[in-house]
């Protein structure tokens, strides 16, 4: 056997070996991805089952029988009467008209205002991060409270789901700057 043919033979072996090694690598990779997919599928199935479990539990706890019992016993709710329905914008607008001279006093409901002993408002926790959300975001205020000139809605802002408290504060600040 000549030197050349020996080199060639070794070369062939090397090529074959490389191919086998590459194939083995690919095979392992495919199997790994497959296992990942299977695991993800199993997780999806498990979550779907949990989802169904929770949904069923919710439906069971809020069954019509239960709701009827609550309405009847605890809340005393009744079906709305015919005069409680509004069928035109004009009728709706008529509610804004001033009270007549001999009209009865409107019914006032009891409520708590800030002057009384208010219990502390529960802190909202982000469902994803588990951290309490930034109170400044909830309050809808600027960090220093001077840039917001106009507030369209009273009360807290929409709570950012991703818990990006700082980003939301920045947005509020920008909105404040824009409305000024």
């Amino acid at each position, binding site marked *: 056997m000549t030197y050349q043919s020996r080199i060639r033979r070794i070369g062939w072996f090397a090529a074959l070996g490389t191919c086998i090694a590459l194939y083995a690598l690919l095979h392992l990779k495919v199997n790994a991805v497959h296992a990942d997919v299977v695991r993800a599928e199993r997780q999806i199935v498990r979550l779907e089952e949990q989802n169904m479990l929770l949904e069923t539990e919710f*439906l069971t706890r809020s069954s*019509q029988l239960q709701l009827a019992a609550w309405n009847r016993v605890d809340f005393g709710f009744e079906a709305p*009467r015919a005069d409680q329905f509004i069928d035109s914008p004009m009728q709706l607008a008529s509610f804004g008209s001033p009270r007549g001279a001999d009209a009865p006093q409107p019914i006032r409901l009891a409520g708590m205002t800030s002057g009384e002993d208010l219990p502390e408002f529960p802190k909202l926790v982000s469902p994803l991060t588990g951290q309490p959300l930034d109170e400044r975001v909830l309050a809808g205020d600027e960090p220093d409270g001077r840039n917001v000139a106009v507030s369209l809605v009273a009360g807290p802002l929409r709570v950012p789901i991703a818990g990006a408290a700082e980003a939301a504060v920045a947005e509020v600040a920008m909105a404040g700057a824009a409305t000024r």
Partner: protein
Amino acid sequence: MTAYAAPHTIVTGQAGRVDHRRRALLVARLRLLLIAGVFVLVAAAALVRITWIGTVESAPREQSMAEALLPLRGEITDRNGVPLARAFPAYALWFNPSAMAEGGDGGPPLVKSPEQVAAELKAIFPDLDQHEVTQQLRSGRAGYLRRRVLPEDANRVIAIGELALELPRETDRHYPQGRMAAHVLGYVAADGHGRVGMEAVLDEYLLDPARRADPVALSIDMRVQGALEDELRSGMRSVNAVGAAGIVLDVDTGEVLALASLPEFDPNDVQSSDVRVTQEQYDRGITAPAFNRVTNQVYELGSTFKPLAVAAAIDSGSITDLSRRYGATPYEVQGRTIRDSHPLGASLNTPEMLIHSSNIVTGHIVDEMGAATLRQYMVDLGMNERPYIELPARGFPIWQSGEWSRIRAITVGYGHGVAVTPLHLASAYAAMVNGGIWRPATLQRVAPGQAPRGRRVFKASTSARMNQLLRMIAVYGTGRNADAPGFRVGGKTGSAEKPGNGGYRQTSLVSTFAAAFPMDNPRYVVVAMLDEPQGTVASSYQRTAAWNAAPIVGRLVPRIGPQLGVLPDADRDIDLTDLRPLVGGVD
């Protein structure tokens, strides 16, 4: 392959070269043959494998999510997609005394004492019968301790630390709404097949692997069903009735939006007493809770038939003038006296007859129409056959075959002499108010525009006239307690004595209110029926339908109307101006 190469030999000279060439040629051929052989082998192996896969081996099973998520039994939902019955992966609590003995040491099945374990289980399940469970644990018999355990309770059971308490995962049929719509849904028995309701009807579909992934939508509206059952139950309790039945039917499609029969059963926990009665109970006329009073029990539904008789008379041309007066004094027909519950004056016209519910005047109207005509209308309304609905339990009416005598026709005119189910009545009322088309009732959702064509029983003009008359009964007559403000309810009361041994029993009534709303464009028929109501404070010590069944409808309609898209409007109503002068004496 190179391993098969021939050894190199050194040959000199011409002969050697020839020899060398021949050898090289031979080696080359051998190698070629070898390679060809390998290829043939590989090809043959592949062929064999392909043949094997194609013929012997079973098809590859696709293990995917879809299969894992496929329920063992299909889901049943209401018309809006709210699940009413679903296959539910649940845990059971099983006592396996051999779990600890598997080591062969012959020790006791429990680590702690049976009393202690039962007490700990009692702490998890407060409704557990501690004594019974203690007995079972002590006896060493394997068996269920509980058929259904919630996941959080399952974790607490594991925390007890007893190997003998096993929690096998079992797929169970769960009805989230509990007792609601039990007769419509039915239940799944231990053999895995449905019973009684749509579970039995759809059994094949719900078990079919190809189709069970898609839920089946019923025509039931869960909210309407809940309201109907709630009102029927409170109405039934307030007058101590033995049973109640109710149905809400879409007049244009025949869809049943709610169907309730009380007393009901719990499909989540069916007892043998729910489905069978003892001989003694049977003799006393008591039915099992699983018995469906709406589709299976036939009743003489009394005066609710009078509007049907009047509609037949108007439609056949027998009544041409609604102001015509008929004598209202008792009279005798074939040896039987037709009389009213109380005197209603010397004469009444047709609207007055319906408002005061006079048997005598109904008799005159039927007499003029003729027995054969009334019979034909009753046949057209499906009163001579089982009701049209998917449910397996459908009662056959008590129906006089052959030609009707005069007295038979008169009694049928005011709802005696023929016994039908409340569903028959609802379908007939739907045909009477919807323009005259009778359609079969169905429990499966009907897609818009897919309603069955049905058959015409009454002319549209007759139907329009009947809508006015039904509304008048609710405004001026016995149906006033059902007149929910703004909903334009129209309907007729009916109180019939139940037949017993040797004639009618005056002490037990069946009181019915058959109604439709809104009468200016009828969309839904509501029938409420009470079986043997008593006179109580709630009904002003009255037993007739005006005092017990009509108020049920009066309370039900405001609850279901807005949910069904019928908004109350005090400024709208059906035009009664042409009939109002005919009923002078009412307030």
